[in-house]
């Protein structure tokens, strides 16, 4: 469904992503794990067209999207939940969801909002609140809910568990599983490797901008190198 070939991204003279290739098939949860600064967010931003790869090719549903403008990708069914949630702090919760469904019709949004509220009852309780007043966990749920609003085929999530209490982390990962069961393909970027690998089907390990390893998530969980470097022994 998503295929990245030979992605190279530079910040000035810093070569942040080095010849990265990976693939996500329909129905999968694929995770991209790696330490802080490995290049995970850069990869997602490049898929979204916020940054550009030098050479290489990004295809989504068989279409070359390497040069697409960012705003067109939502229409294609590609959704990106950015690092740090980035909800619209000054809008109320409901409006945030509405903006998530910007490319959809009002009627569609009415249905999808009910779906989102079913997954996230907390968000429903707070729908008239200014989004900036939500707690970190609620903001993350809102960010996930917002990304569901465009009825995506593939959701890319950038560290959804960042800064959350363990209970909430568990909740977020449960929801990721539910979404996937409902037919959404997921590309999950995480520093929390244990959680990510436990929910994913396959994983890629990113080290300083390069793919160092790729395997089924189960195998990565049992791999000694991965254990040592990412799972705390």
């Amino acid at each position, binding site marked *: 469904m998503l295929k990245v070939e030979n992605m190279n991204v530079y910040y000035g003279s810093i070569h942040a992503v080095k010849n990265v290739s990976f693939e996500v098939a329909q129905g999968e949860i694929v995770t991209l794990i790696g330490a802080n600064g490995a290049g995970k967010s850069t990869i997602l931003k490049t898929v979204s067209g916020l940054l550009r790869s030098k050479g290489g090719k990004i295809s989504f549903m068989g279409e070359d999207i390497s040069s697409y403008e960012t705003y067109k990708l939502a229409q294609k069914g590609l959704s*990106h939940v950015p690092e740090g949630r*980035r909800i619209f*702090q000054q*809008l109320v919760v409901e409006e945030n969801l509405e*903006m998530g469904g*910007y*490319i959809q019709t009002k009627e569609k949004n009415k249905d999808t909002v009910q779906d989102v509220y079913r997954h996230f009852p907390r968000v429903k309780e707070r729908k008239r609140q200014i989004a900036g007043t939500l707690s970190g966990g609620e903001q993350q749920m809102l960010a996930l809910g917002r990304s569901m609003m465009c009825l995506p085929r593939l959701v890319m999530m950038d560290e959804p568990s960042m800064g959350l209490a363990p209970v909430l982390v568990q909740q977020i990962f449960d929801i990721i599983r539910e979404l996937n069961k409902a037919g959404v393909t997921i590309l999950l970027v995480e520093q929390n490797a244990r959680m990510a690998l436990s929910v994913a089907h396959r994983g890629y390990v990113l080290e300083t901008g390069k793919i160092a390893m790729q395997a089924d998530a189960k195998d990565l969980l049992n791999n000694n190198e991965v254990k040592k470097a990412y799972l705390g022994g």
Partner: protein
Amino acid sequence: MMTLVYLMINGLQIGSIYSLVALGYSMVYGIVKLVNFAHGDVIMVGAYTTWYLVSRFSVPAWIAALVSVAVCSVLGMLIEKIAYKPLRKSGRLSLLVTAIGVSLLLQNAMQLLFSANPRMFTNIFTGTMTIGERQFSNATAATIAVSVVIMAGLTLLVKKTKIGKAMRTVSEDNETAQLMGINVNHTISFTFALGSGLAAVGAVFYCCSYSQIQPTMGSMLGLKAFVAAVLGGIGSLPGAMTGGLCIGIAESLTKGYVSSQLTDAVVFGILIVVLLVKPSGIFGRPHNEKV
């Protein structure tokens, strides 16, 4: 006591004009973080357009006013497309310098076309009305009434419509707005068109009360409206409206009770006090300045 009422009415009139212009500064600042120094000169273009159509072609005044709104909207969009858009990633200072350049360009172009001599602008709203024992021109009433309607409409537009919500999201977080599928270029163009259109409305009303136009007229009017925007909290629409009215009333009271020589000093004095006491302005949000 009645004097105070009269002064307030005059203050509301000029204040409404400042508000209309300040809205343009504020909206544009909100969305591209640029103090658009050419905004004042867009007012001037609006004034000349109306004047030209009325005096040369005897076009009915209200049609001339509508045409200048259209002209200014297109001009605002073009300025953004040609001058600012290519610099969107180059930092605020380059943008600011470019804005000053555009301002000078517009002033000089107008001097070339119509010379630097002031032109007389005939009042569109003839006739007067009596309030208490003083006469006010119909222009006063029209300015205040139309401004109120426009500001209410604008508030609705920004709060309720799809494009208005897009404006707010792009202002808050341009990248995430794009991820939602919002075309940021269109949204920015629309904002410039809207702000410039409001400036043209302000221009027409300004001309009605001051009856004289010249190529540099936009500088002072623009600067005062900018002070109004800062006073209200730049980026905030209720702020721009309130700031404009406050500045207008302050000016009028100074004229009435102190001296008409001192009005400009008072306006810029207000700016200094605001910057010292509450730089984010009345409605400003100090915490949301993005890094």
